[in-house]
C-alpha cells in the first residue's frame, strides 16, 4: 500500500516534469483562476470598507426642546441605547451646540451679532443616534413616536428628529448599498464559475492527450487507482504551484495599489493583503488543490471504464 502510494506520487511528479508545455499551461490557467479568487477577496474588502464608510456617515439627530434638563436627556439616551438596533448615542448639550454653532459661523458676522442680541442660548440639546444597519433608522424613528413617557404627550422633551427630512436619502442609500452587495456577490459567482470552467477544460485537455496511455495502462493490468493516482498528484501539483505563483504575483500588485490608491479605495490593499495573508493562502491553496484534483478526477473517469 505504502509502496503503491510512493509509486503514484513519484509517477505524478515525473508526469508533471515531462509534461512540459501542457503542465505549464495547466499551472498558468490555475494561477489565473486563483488570481481571480484573490482579486475577488480583495475587492470584497474594498467594497465592504467603502460601504462601511458611507454607512458611518448616516445618522439621525434628535433635537430636544430648549430647556430640557440633562437628566431627562440622559434618560432618553439610556432608553435608546437599550434598543437592539442602536449602535451608539451621543449627547450634545445646549452649551456645546452653541459653541459649535459659533465656531461654524465664526466668519458669518451678522449671524453671530443676532445671536449676541438674543442674549440667551436659543439652541436645545440633541442626541445623535447611529444604528447598526441603515435600514433600522425607521424603527428607531417609530420608537420616538411611540407612547414612551419621555417622548410623548404635552410633556414631550423632543422638538423633532431629523429622520423624516433625511428619509428619502437614507432609503436611497440603503438600496444602493444592498444593490452593490448583491452585484458583488453575483459578479463573484460568475467570475469564479468561468474560471473554474476554464481550468477544468484545460486539465481535461491535458488528460485527453494521455487518453491512449490510460487505455494501455489498463490493458497491462494496472488498477484504476494506479492509473488515476498520478493524474490526481499532478492536479495537486498544479494547485500548489498556482497558489505560490498567485501569492507572489499579488505582492507587487497590492504594493502598487497600497502606495497609489489607498485614498481612492478607502483601505490600504497592501496592508489588508499582508494582515490576511494566512487566510488568503488557505483559501486559494484549498481552492487550487480541490480544483486540480476534482478536474483530474472527473476528466479521467470516462477513460477508465474499459
Amino acid at each position, binding site marked *: 500500500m505504502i509502496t503503491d502510494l510512493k509509486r503514484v506520487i513519484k509517477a505524478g511528479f515525473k508526469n508533471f516534469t515531462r509534461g512540459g508545455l501542457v503542465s505549464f499551461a495547466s499551472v498558468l490557467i490555475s494561477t489565473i483562476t486563483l488570481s481571480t479568487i484573490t482579486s475577488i477577496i480583495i475587492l470584497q474588502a474594498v467594497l465592504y470598507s467603502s460601504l462601511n464608510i458611507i454607512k458611518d456617515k448616516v445618522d439621525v439627530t434628535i433635537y430636544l426642546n430648549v430647556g430640557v434638563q440633562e437628566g431627562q436627556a440622559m434618560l432618553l439616551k439610556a432608553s435608546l441605547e437599550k434598543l437592539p438596533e442602536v449602535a451608539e448615542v451621543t449627547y450634545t448639550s445646549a452649551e456645546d451646540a452653541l459653541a459649535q454653532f459659533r465656531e461654524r459661523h465664526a466668519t458669518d458676522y451678522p449671524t453671530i451679532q443676532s445671536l449676541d442680541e438674543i442674549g440667551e442660548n436659543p439652541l436645545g440639546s440633541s442626541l445623535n443616534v447611529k444604528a447598526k444597519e441603515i435600514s433600522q433608522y425607521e424603527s428607531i424613528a417609530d420608537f420616538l413616536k411611540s407612547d414612551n413617557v419621555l417622548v410623548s404627550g404635552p410633556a414631550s422633551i423632543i422638538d423633532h428628529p431629523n429622520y423624516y427630512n433625511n428619509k428619502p436619502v437614507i432609503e436611497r442609500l440603503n438600496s444602493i448599498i444592498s444593490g452593490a452587495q448583491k452585484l458583488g456577490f453575483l459578479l463573484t459567482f460568475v467570475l469564479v464559475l468561468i474560471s473554474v470552467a476554464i481550468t477544468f477544460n484545460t486539465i481535461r485537455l491535458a488528460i485527453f492527450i494521455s487518453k491512449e496511455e490510460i487505455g494501455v495502462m489498463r490493458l497491462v*493490468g494496472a488498477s*484504476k487507482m494506479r492509473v488515476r493516482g498520478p493524474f490526481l498528484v499532478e492536479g495537486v501539483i498544479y494547485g500548489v504551484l498556482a497558489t505560490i505563483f498567485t501569492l507572489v504575483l499579488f505582492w507587487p500588485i497590492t504594493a502598487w495599489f497600497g502606495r497609489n490608491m489607498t485614498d481612492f479605495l478607502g483601505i490600504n490593499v497592501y496592508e489588508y493583503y499582508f494582515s490576511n495573508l494566512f487566510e488568503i493562502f488557505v483559501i486559494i491553496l484549498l481552492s487550487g488543490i480541490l480544483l486540480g484534483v476534482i478536474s483530474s478526477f472527473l476528466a479521467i473517469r470516462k477513460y477508465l471504464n474499459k
Partner: protein
Amino acid sequence: MIYFNNVSKVYKDATALENVTMTITAGEFVSIVGHSGAGKTTLTKLIMAEENPTDGTVFFESIDVHKLNNNNLTKLRRRIGVVFQDFKLLQNKTAYENIAFAMEAVGKSDEEISSDVPHVLELVDLAHRSHHFPIEMSGGEQQRLAIARAIINQPELIIADEPTGNLDPINTHEIVQILKKINGLGTTVILTTHNRGVIDSVGKRVITMENGKIIRDSKHEK
C-alpha cells in the same frame, strides 16, 4: 484454455464476427490470418474484454471474461501479455519504466523490478536503450520493447495483434523468433497477421478468417 462459443460481434452497421466457435489449448501457438477487416483484432479484443460480444460467450479457462467485474478483469489481464501492431508503449516513460510499470501494476517489489527489468531488456537486445523514450527508438526496437513488457510478468497467454505489421523483413523475422522462443518455454501465443511469410515461418496451427467467420482451421485438417 480459450473457448469461443458461438460468438458474434456486430457494430452499428457492420458484422465483425459471426458465430465463431473455437478452442485454443494451453501451450499452443495459433496464428490467425485474414485480410484487414476479417475480424482478427475483434477476436483478440474479446479475449481481453476490451469489447463485449453481441452474442455468445468467451471463456478463459472456466471464466466467462465478459461477466467479470472491474477488479477481476484487472486480475485476468495480468495473466495475459499483449503486443500491438502500433506498439502502444507509454510515450512519456523510458524503456525501463515501460517494463517496470507492467511489473508495478501486478504489485512486484522494487527489488524484483530492479533485478528483472535489465534481464528482460537484455533478452530482447535493448539493454543499451534502457533510458531511451519510445520516440527515440526504431520500429523494431519499440516492438521488441512491447514484447519485453508483455512477457515480464510471465503471462500464461501472449496475444500479438499484427506485431510485424509495421516492420521490415529483418525485424519481422526477429519478432517471430522471439515469439517462438516464448512459446517454446510453455506460454500460449495467439498471433494475428495478414502476412503469409510470417505464418510459414511459424509453421504451427493456422486459423483463417474471412468476413468475420472462420473459414479454415489447420488443426482440423490434420
